[in-house]
């Protein structure tokens, strides 16, 4: 089984595979394309390959007949037309049809056009037209077929060998003479196209027959490419495996031809050689098409060098015996010239002598014939069939053999002719390319074979190849030092392998261990992460919380204790004697300052009292302010109630009803309820400027300022005292800032809740005092009552107040300590758990 090298990765694959095992590249696309080209007419053709199909060297006579069957115009007009379509110039594809390009004058304006210009049939009217010209239209084909034989092939003599066998023998030597064959292929095709229309084809499927010819075609193409591309053949040889090369090697030997081929196209080449100087500077010509053959002379020279007699020492090795330096050197070394002369190995001498002996053994006649071997066998007259053989040729194929239907039997017509006998001498002289010379000469082909054989690299290329070999057999890159093992890039490091990604086995790649350097801490982190992930998947039993939480019990316990004790003290507190709180210096105290100010008030002096507290603070505020208001009433002052709170007027009425019932103050006689003062600070500012204008009517709709104490009140400074009862620090601040800053002689005092005391204290303990005095909460009220000597609400609530504070302090202390200890234990436990984790 022959291996096929993958064009992508260069690895060998069996020939029965369509795709590469390593990179999955499609193998042998040309084969399928060639087959497909012949089958469907609309697909892209490959004219040269199809022509080559017709020129298969392995073709048997049966196959030839099948070809002829295929070329029958009557029954398979489609195939013919398909061929014509395929050979249309505009459909000619790539470089594989380079020959056709050269034969298309209208489409190739470059170097090919130059060749075509040179190939113009100026001298001979029967010169072979371009292939495309033949196959472009069916009319032309018909014209050719209907052309008189004497005009179509005027110089064919009946003595010349009929061309049938030449035709097939030439196909057998297509490989080694591929350039010439390429040039001759149109001629053959032209012959095929000149088939008479009335010839019947056997009823066979042409596609099947052509399919069987694909494999030899490939070999032919490879050889043609390798030999035709000259210098480019090296890379192509690298792609070939040794087996295939060995198989093709015998075909390199040209088939000996004893007689010159006489054709028009050879004449053209002759003319080209003569006029080759005109295009010798044109480097755009492929080497194998070079008409000057200058490039090809190099290997010829090399071969000549190899044929240098072994006795002869090269000039650069020749020693000049007359050189004085050499003589001096020899004299010092006591040597002679013969001693230092290099000795030629004996084997080389023997081989050279043997070669010389063999060459004369060839007869002169054979030498002459050997020289003609450079021509295709089909062009030689050596293989001309005998007249008997001509008779055996069926009529349909006689035109291929050059037999004119009108000619007498035995008279054959050679489709290829040459005008002069010594045409080849003129043609293949010094101007011929070396490969043509070597191909036409059996002796000269040997050095070429030794020089470059398929599957081998040229010596200089081999020397340039890297010698580093990779031990990697997988073809996968392990690191950056990957070295290619196969293909043209073999031995070159740091190459991206074409099959790396495709041939990568994901399972093996996943199992490939990572070269990570993990420290101990990294491993600990990995273990911790693994543990955390593992614990996430574990089920945890969440305990159902108890129906009654401990803290909720504590809350209820606190409430019950406070409720029971305070209620009990309220009910039974009167019977329990309680000491008064420790009293400091009264003069410097806030309640003492207020007390002395009230003591200085006289009867009927207007006093403004602001009830600015919320109903929720009624209990504390009533207890705190009862003694102060009672003191004012005792002094006989005229009270004016105002409030910046909507509920203030009602609270004032409620206060008088609940706390000052004993004093029996009467509205509009002893006090006036001015009602609600909207606008907060703005309202207070307006009230400070013009109280009568801001609140003209009292709470009950009566004239607020009609009472005698208020007649002289035009601004807030006209009041003898201002007392603000509030539980809100912001309200106290507004009163101090908006009213206290304007007041000059009128003192501003306050009865505030215990929570407000820290905020109003700075106004009392500053200089000048914005706040003259204040009573803060139950404690100051208790002191105030003690100062007055008249127990009031503060004394009544003092014992429950103290009991409530004691219980609260006890609860806070015990609960705080318990919670603190529990918090410490829980934190310690959490640390222990964290340490365990």
């Amino acid at each position, binding site marked *: 089984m022959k291996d096929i090298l993958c064009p992508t990765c260069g690895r060998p694959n069996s020939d029965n595979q369509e795709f590469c095992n390593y990179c999955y590249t499609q193998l042998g696309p040309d084969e399928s394309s060639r087959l497909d080209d012949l089958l469907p007419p609309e697909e892209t053709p490959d004219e040269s390959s199809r022509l080559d199909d017709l020129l298969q060297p392995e073709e048997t006579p049966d196959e030839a007949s099948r070809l002829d069957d295929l070329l029958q115009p009557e029954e398979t007009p489609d195939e013919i037309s398909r061929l014509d379509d395929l050979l249309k110039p505009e459909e000619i594809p790539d470089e594989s049809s380079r020959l056709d390009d050269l034969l298309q004058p209208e489409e190739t304006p470059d170097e090919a056009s130059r060749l075509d210009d040179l190939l113009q049939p100026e001298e001979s009217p029967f010169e072979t037209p371009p292939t495309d010209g033949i196959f472009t239209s069916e009319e032309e084909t018909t014209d050719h077929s209907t052309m008189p034989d004497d005009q179509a092939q005027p110089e064919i003599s009946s003595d010349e060998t009929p061309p049938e066998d030449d035709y097939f023998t030439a196909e057998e030597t297509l490989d080694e003479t591929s350039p010439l064959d390429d040039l001759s292929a149109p001629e053959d095709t032209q012959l095929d196209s000149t088939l008479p229309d009335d010839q019947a084809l056997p009823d066979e499927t042409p596609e099947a027959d052509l399919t069987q010819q694909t494999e030899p075609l490939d070999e032919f193409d490879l050889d043609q490419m390798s030999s035709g591309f000259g210098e480019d053949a090296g890379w192509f040889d690298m792609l070939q495996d040794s087996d295939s090369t060995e198989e093709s090697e015998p075909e390199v030997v040209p088939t000996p031809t004893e007689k010159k081929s006489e054709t028009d196209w050879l004449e053209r080449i002759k003319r080209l050689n003569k006029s080759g100087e005109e295009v010798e500077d044109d480097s755009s010509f492929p080497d194998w098409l070079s008409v000057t053959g200058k490039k090809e002379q190099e290997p010829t020279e090399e071969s000549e060098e190899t044929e240098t007699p072994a006795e002869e020492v090269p000039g650069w090795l020749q020693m000049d015996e007359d050189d004085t330096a050499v003589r001096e050197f020899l004299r010092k070394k006591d040597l002679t010239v013969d001693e230092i002369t290099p000795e030629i190995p004996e084997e080389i001498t023997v081989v050279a002598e043997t070669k010389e002996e063999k060459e004369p053994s060839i007869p002169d006649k054979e030498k002459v014939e050997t020289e003609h071997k450079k021509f295709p066998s089909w062009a030689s007259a050596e293989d001309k069939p005998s007249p008997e053989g001509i008779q055996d040729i069926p009529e349909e194929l006689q035109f291929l053999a050059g037999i004119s239907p009108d000619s007498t039997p035995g008279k054959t017509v050679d489709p290829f002719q040459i005008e002069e006998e010594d045409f080849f001498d003129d043609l293949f002289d010094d101007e011929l390319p070396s490969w043509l010379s070597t191909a036409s000469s059996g002796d000269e082909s040997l050095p070429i074979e030794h020089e470059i054989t398929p599957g081998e690299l040229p010596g200089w290329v081999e020397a340039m190849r890297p010698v580093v070999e990779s031990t990697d057999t997988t073809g996968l890159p392990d690191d950056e030092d990957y070295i290619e093992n196969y293909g043209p890039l073999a031995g070159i490091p740091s190459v991206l392998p074409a099959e790396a990604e495709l041939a990568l086995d994901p399972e093996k790649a996943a199992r490939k261990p990572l070269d990570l350097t993990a420290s101990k801490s990294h491993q600990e982190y990995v273990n911790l992460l693994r543990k955390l992930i593992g614990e996430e998947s574990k089920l945890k039993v969440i305990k159902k919380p108890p129906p009654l939480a401990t*803290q909720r019990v*504590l*809350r209820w316990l*606190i*409430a019950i204790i*406070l409720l029971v004790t305070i209620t009990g003290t309220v009910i039974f507190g009167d019977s329990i004697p309680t*000491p*008064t*709180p*420790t009293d*400091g210096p009264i003069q410097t105290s806030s309640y003492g300052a207020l007390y002395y100010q009230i003591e200085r008030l006289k009867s009927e002096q207007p006093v403004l009292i602001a009830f600015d507290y919320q*109903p*929720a*603070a*009624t*209990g504390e505020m009533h207890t705190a302010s009862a003694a102060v208001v009672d003191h004012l009433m005792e002094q006989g002052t005229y009270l004016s109630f105002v409030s910046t709170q909507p*509920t203030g007027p*009602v*609270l004032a*009425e*409620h206060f008088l*009803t609940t706390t000052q019932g004993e004093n029996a103050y009467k*509205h509009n006689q002893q006090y006036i309820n001015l009602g609600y*003062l*909207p*606008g*907060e600070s*703005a*309202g207070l500012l*307006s009230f400070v*400027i*013009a109280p009568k*204008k*801001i609140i003209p009517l009292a709470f*009950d*709709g*009566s004239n607020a300022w009609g009472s005698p104490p208020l007649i002289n009140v035009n601004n807030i400074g006209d009041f003898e005292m201002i007392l603000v009862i509030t539980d809100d620090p912001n309200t106290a*601040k507004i009163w101090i800032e908006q009213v206290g800053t304007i007041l000059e002689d009128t003192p501003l005092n306050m009865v505030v809740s215990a929570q407000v*005391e*820290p*905020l109003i*204290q*700075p106004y009392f*303990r500053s200089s000048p005092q914005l706040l003259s005095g204040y009573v803060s909460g139950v404690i100051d009220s208790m002191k105030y009552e003690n100062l007055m000597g008249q127990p009031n609400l503060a004394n009544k609530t003092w014992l429950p107040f*103290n009991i409530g*504070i*004691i219980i*609260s*302090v006890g*609860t*806070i*202390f015990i*609960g*705080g300590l318990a*919670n*603190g200890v*529990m*918090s*410490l234990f829980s*934190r310690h436990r959490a640390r222990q758990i964290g340490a365990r984790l």
Partner: protein
Amino acid sequence: MNIKLKAPISTAIAIGVGIVVLAGYFIPSITNIRFILLRTGLVLAAVALLVGIINLLTVHIKKMGSEGENSGYSLILIITLLVTLAVGIIDMLQTYLAGQPNFQMTNWVFTYIQLPIETSMLAVTAVSLTYAAANILRKRMDLFSITFFFVILLVLLGSFSVPPANIPFLHVVHDWIIRVPALGGARGLLLGIALGTITTGIRILMGTDRPYGG
């Protein structure tokens, strides 16, 4: 041409009124102008209270119509508001007709409905504060929490004079805490409030801050 005059006009009014009222503190001759502006502001504030009541009524009427979960509470609020309003109007009419203050019905509503409810709320607050103080070390055990905890205990212990806990030292500590740390803290707080008020006033006067919209 679409010209938006609302924002510039309102801003100009706010800035102008603010400048006049502020200047009234320093320029006695414009006190009357300042007073007119302040009086207008009081009327608008009273109207705003009435507008607020109407808005509260409208919102809860809409809530009632939406048949939500709290539509029953909205119904109670509307009924209570209307009853209290009716009681107040009746008392006002009786007072104006009789010439004597007569707010018996209003006092009854306030004394037996509003006052106990709000007082009870404050009493619950006392229990909650006690519980929070006892629980403070459980929530947060740091220096500030411990300090706060023991300051509460010292101030409370120094507030009463019941014999077992009537310790003169605690009263001295209580007074010192009230007069020194509490006073210093309050002064700083008041200064901060004053600075904030000044900044806000300047922003409003410059039109940078427009709480009235626009």
